[in-house]
């Protein structure tokens, strides 16, 4: 178990260094960043697939369905990332946004939300009304804060309505996921499964943060292939991969 943590740690440090010193190799970084997102998203799908293989029994069981939905969600994200890679590296479109890739990336949030909901609902009765209210209030406050931060830069651009909707959709949907994932973390925090849920939360947080920054930088015209915010996405996928691996090991 320690080995996988070590490998992930080394991978994250390596990726961070790669992005920190990108000024020395901008062209390579643009290529690497666009290609690596598909690779790591694919690896996360495989990790989730192993979990599905272990926990799947039949569609009527909530636990089985939760794992099917996790895998479907990650698979849709992988397709989205692969399309992004195709657009940038094969078709030569520098920033394919919004595009068909976003259709898959945004669709992935639906099964992922269902997965989190199904899993948490099994154990939800241990959460008090107070905790549920606090969690919901925090999510609403965060959503208002993120929207508030993005509203001026996004609305101030001449972007079309679709771009604006997509700009807001990513961080808001991310926060919706986070609001459920936090409940999972609270339930399992003191158990071995807490590690897996902490990683899921960290992954969603990084992903949401990355998308909020992406919306901001694209609206300001400062985003470029290999931008450091891609590090957030990459680490988020590493965390997803690790979360599912840890889950298999702990249950």
């Amino acid at each position, binding site marked *: 178990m320690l080995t996988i943590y070590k490998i992930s740690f080394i991978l994250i440090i390596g990726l961070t260094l790669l992005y920190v010193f990108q000024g020395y190799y901008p062209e390579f970084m643009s290529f690497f960043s666009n290609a690596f997102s598909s690779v790591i998203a694919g690896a996360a799908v495989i990790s989730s697939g192993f979990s599905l293989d272990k926990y*799947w029994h039949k569609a009527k*069981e909530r636990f089985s369905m939760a794992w099917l939905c996790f895998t479907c969600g990650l698979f849709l994200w992988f397709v989205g990332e692969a399309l992004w890679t195709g657009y940038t590296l094969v078709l030569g479109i520098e920033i394919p946004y919004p595009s068909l890739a976003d259709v898959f990336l945004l669709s992935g949030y639906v099964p992922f939300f269902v997965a989190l909901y199904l899993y948490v609902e099994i154990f939800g009765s241990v959460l008090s009304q107070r905790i549920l209210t606090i969690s919901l209030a925090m999510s609403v406050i965060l959503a208002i804060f993120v929207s508030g931060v993005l509203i001026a830069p996004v609305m101030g651009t001449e972007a079309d309505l679709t771009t604006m909707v997509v700009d807001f959709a990513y961080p808001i949907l991310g926060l919706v996921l986070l609001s459920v994932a936090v409940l999972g973390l609270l*339930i*399992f*925090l*003191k*158990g071995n*499964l807490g590690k897996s849920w902490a990683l899921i939360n960290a992954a969603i947080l990084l992903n949401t943060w990355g998308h909020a920054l992406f919306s901001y930088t694209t609206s300001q015209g400062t985003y470029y292939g290999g931008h450091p915010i891609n590090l957030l996405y990459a680490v988020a996928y590493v965390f997803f991969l690790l979360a599912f691996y840890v889950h298999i090991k702990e249950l």
Partner: protein
Amino acid sequence: MLVETKSPFKDVLFEAVDEGLLTLGESGKEAVYFHLQNLCSLRRVDVSDRPEIFVEGIRKIFGVGAEVIERSIVMSLYRKLGLKYKEKEGYGFLAYLNDAKEMKVRRLK
């Protein structure tokens, strides 16, 4: 070959644990048994003999979430024994088990 004999209560508890763990579905149940053996050297057949180790084990895995499984097992146990389950403040899994055992003994008398 050694033949283990169990009291009727333990038999019912064994079934109740099996049923209660189905909260996680069949595969989840098997996973829990597998990890209980690894974490606390608790075999599936020994769960009803060592319920305190079982509780410790599932709390180690699920944290507070274990309460859901414990409640499901207790409800299943009470139903199987024909007892009325009533939630009591500050009562844990083992306390419910002891109550059920005592109530069953009292009924038999």
